[in-house]
């Protein structure tokens, strides 16, 4: 074997295979990256990117295959092994202890005696200056913003002397401006000779930052290409496996009546802090109102307030001129306001993980019918209907939904909500974790509802999708509306500015109304 050629790689993976129960997550994957290079790992959700990287960082253990670091074959059995080999991973869901200060998180797991706070603090500041990072070592993580937390994550691996950095979807939680700042830091690290792997499914970012791209599809490594020789269309084809149209339909509907009007609404989180701060907007029948914003800007609380799950401090939610505030969730459901929120773990709210489809269909309708007993017959019929209509893959109507794949779970949830024929459909992150095909099924479902004159509120993460799908886009920042704009005429940059609240706040959204 050509030893020389191999040693220039920081990481080389050969035929890595990993299974979870009966699911093949990685199937004989090959991958390599050099020092002083940024490699993008591109693939749809569920293509096995994160699994592969977790094996490099010692969280998972490959079932078979070889890993070479700096040309030497290694077995990475634990995060300590990975650390000793100079590998540092920045996880998508931060691995930080919220109750600790930044510096405690950074020194966590290092060898040696506990140093004085001051010494540690100095060391951290020194490293952050080298790479142009900004941090307050004494600050508690629980008090930090998302991008501050990410800085702590990066410092954590740098402090331990990592030369190979793996970033799992680092931009998912950042505004466009914060993303640019992160990329500048990554470029600086590349200059210093670090090998960097960045996982993402955003094509624009791949093109902007990487030197080479490795594409994964359904657990297999498909191809590795030089970024310079590529464009978005080619990458998508490689990722999905066939040419796809990236266009989302946006049917034009005639101007109609306003059905839901939110007036001066303020909502507190259960812990008492302010989540929604004095906002007003309205939704019309037959339109999709997109809601953009950095995660945690009040989207969840807004949904919950409309659904009657969270009390509001002031204001009103008018549904056909009737105030919904003070009504119980079941009364609001009766009125035809449907809310479906897909949380990060996908199952937390809306579906009962251990129950089958039949019992999940019952969730909002079990009270129907007289007597103390539940009537399962119509629910079972509905479940069977949805399986046929939406192509849900499940062994049966009684199989617990937690055993279904993410796409199917979301089809169950959305299908149930739509079958209840709502007049207002609020849906938050319905394509979270879905592959492109399933995502498009969801967009079609939403458009179908729009054509049926349903008012749709779509809370999303991907700005490109919001721009193509919505009629109007409302931007939330720290619980306030920083703008409501026409989706047909606005730009990504404009929305990005509003997401950080840096736009002019004076004429808040008035012109679009």
């Amino acid at each position: 074997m050509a030893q020389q050629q191999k040693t220039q790689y920081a990481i080389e993976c050969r035929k890595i295979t990993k299974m979870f129960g009966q699911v093949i997550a990685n199937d004989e994957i090959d991958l390599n990256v050099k020092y002083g290079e940024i490699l993008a790992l591109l693939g749809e959700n569920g293509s096995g990117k994160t699994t592969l990287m977790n094996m490099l960082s010692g969280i998972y253990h490959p079932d078979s295959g070889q890993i070479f670091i700096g040309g030497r074959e290694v077995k990475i059995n634990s995060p300590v092994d990975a650390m000793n080999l100079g590998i540092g991973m920045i996880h998508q869901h931060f691995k930080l202890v919220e109750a600790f200060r930044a510096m405690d998180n950074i020194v966590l797991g290092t060898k040696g005696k506990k140093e004085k706070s001051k010494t540690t603090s100095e060391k951290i500041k020194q490293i952050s200056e080298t790479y142009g990072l900004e941090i307050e070592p004494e600050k508690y993580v629980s008090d930090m913003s998302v991008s501050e937390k990410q800085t702590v994550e990066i410092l954590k691996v740098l402090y331990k002397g990592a030369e190979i950095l793996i970033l799992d979807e680092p931009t998912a939680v950042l505004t466009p401006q914060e993303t640019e700042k992160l990329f500048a830091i990554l470029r600086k690290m590349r200059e210093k000779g670090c090998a960097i792997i960045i996982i993402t499914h955003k094509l624009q970012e791949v093109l902007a930052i990487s030197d080479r791209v490795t594409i994964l599809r359904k657990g297999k490594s498909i191809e590795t290409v030089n970024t310079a020789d590529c464009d978005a269309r080619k990458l998508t084809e490689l990722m999905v496996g066939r040419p796809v149209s990236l266009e989302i339909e946006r049917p034009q509907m005639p101007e109609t009546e306003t059905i839901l009007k939110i007036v001066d609404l303020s909502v507190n989180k259960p812990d008492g802090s302010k989540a929604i701060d004095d906002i007003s907007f309205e939704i019309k029948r037959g339109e999709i109102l997109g809601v953009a914003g950095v995660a945690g800007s009040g989207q969840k609380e807004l949904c919950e307030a409309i659904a009657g799950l969270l009390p509001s401090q002031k204001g009103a939610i008018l549904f056909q001129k009737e105030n919904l505030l003070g009504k119980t969730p079941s009364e609001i459901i009766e009125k035809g306001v449907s809310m479906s929120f897909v949380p990060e773990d996908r199952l937390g709210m809306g579906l009962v993980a251990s129950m089958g489809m039949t019992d999940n269909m019952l969730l909002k309708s079990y009270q129907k019918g007289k007597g103390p007993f539940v009537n399962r017959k119509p629910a079972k019929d509905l479940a069977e209907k949805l399986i046929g209509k939406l192509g849900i893959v499940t062994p049966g109507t009684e199989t617990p939904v937690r055993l279904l794949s993410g796409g199917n779970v979301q089809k169950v949830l959305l299908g149930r909500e739509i079958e209840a024929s709502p007049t207002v459909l609020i849906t938050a992150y319905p394509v979270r974790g879905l592959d492109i095909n399933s995502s498009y099924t969801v967009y079609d479902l939403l458009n179908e509802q729009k054509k049926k004159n349903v008012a749709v509120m779509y809370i999303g993460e991907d700005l490109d999708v919001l721009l193509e799908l919505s009629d109007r886009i409302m931007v939330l920042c720290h619980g306030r509306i920083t703008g409501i704009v026409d989706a047909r005429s606005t730009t990504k940059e404009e929305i990005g500015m509003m997401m950080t609240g840096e736009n002019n706040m004076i004429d808040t959204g008035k012109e679009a109304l």
Partner: protein
Amino acid sequence: MDIIIKFLVAAVGAGTPLLFGTVGEILTEKTGHLNLGVEGMMSIGACIGFMVGYYTDNFFLALLFAAIAGACSALIYAVLTVTFMANQNVTGLTLTIFGIGFANFIGIFVLNKSPEGTLKLPERITAAMRGIHIPGLSDIPVIGELLFSYSPFVYIGIIIAVICAYYLNRTKEGLNLKAIGENPGAADAAGIKITKVKYINIILGGAICGIGGVYCSMIINGGVWISDNVGGLGWIAVALVIFANWQPSYAILGSFVFGALRVLKYYIPQSVFPFPIAFYDMLPFLMTALVLVISSMRKSGRINLPAALGLNYFREER
């Protein structure tokens, strides 16, 4: 005045088994594991420690074996919940039922074999457990009695609590331990050997509880074995952990306060407060319930409840 000093001294004595139980459980809970088996671990420690003391007449050996017995019973819990990821509540409860049953069973088994029909500790060990006497210091009026007159258990308990406080708040190992209880995923990614740290601390916690147990069997009933000698103190200890806000230093205070409640009935004259005895017996439990309610009402402040308490960790969960 005299009666107040006697009361305080008695309170410290009555609070000591609680101190061991509470500190042991704090260590356990800091790993993110809620061990409801404190009562069981204390019972097993009480039984084994007493029997070793009974047969060897050696205070140190009794203490050592009580600790080992507590550690072994905690090991059962650790294997089931850490390695086998069993439900922590059920495992802890089972340990309690098993522990009490085991202690009573062994107690009666040995009792049936003894010629006297009772199990009473021999003289030398009883003497060793009696209040210490430091010439000079112990003779100082009031202070001598309040500070230098207790059974060695009291000092051992306080020393253990202080060491644990130092360990948790001042050392890297303590920081690692707390990280595990807060966010095992983060601790794992930081390279801390989670399983090892969990085992060590759960077992240490069990050992400390075991010592608390042997106090119950050897001191509370004057060195005579009776069944059910821990009598619910283990449960109060679990609740005291909340009262102490997961801080060993507060545990010292908390257990002596509860010790005072336990001995109150001997010091309140019936003529002044004509409460029935049953009321005083109920008092510690009533107060514990009250503490639970109050601490759950208190929403402000930094509460030290480990965020991952009660959740088992599996690295490859997805």
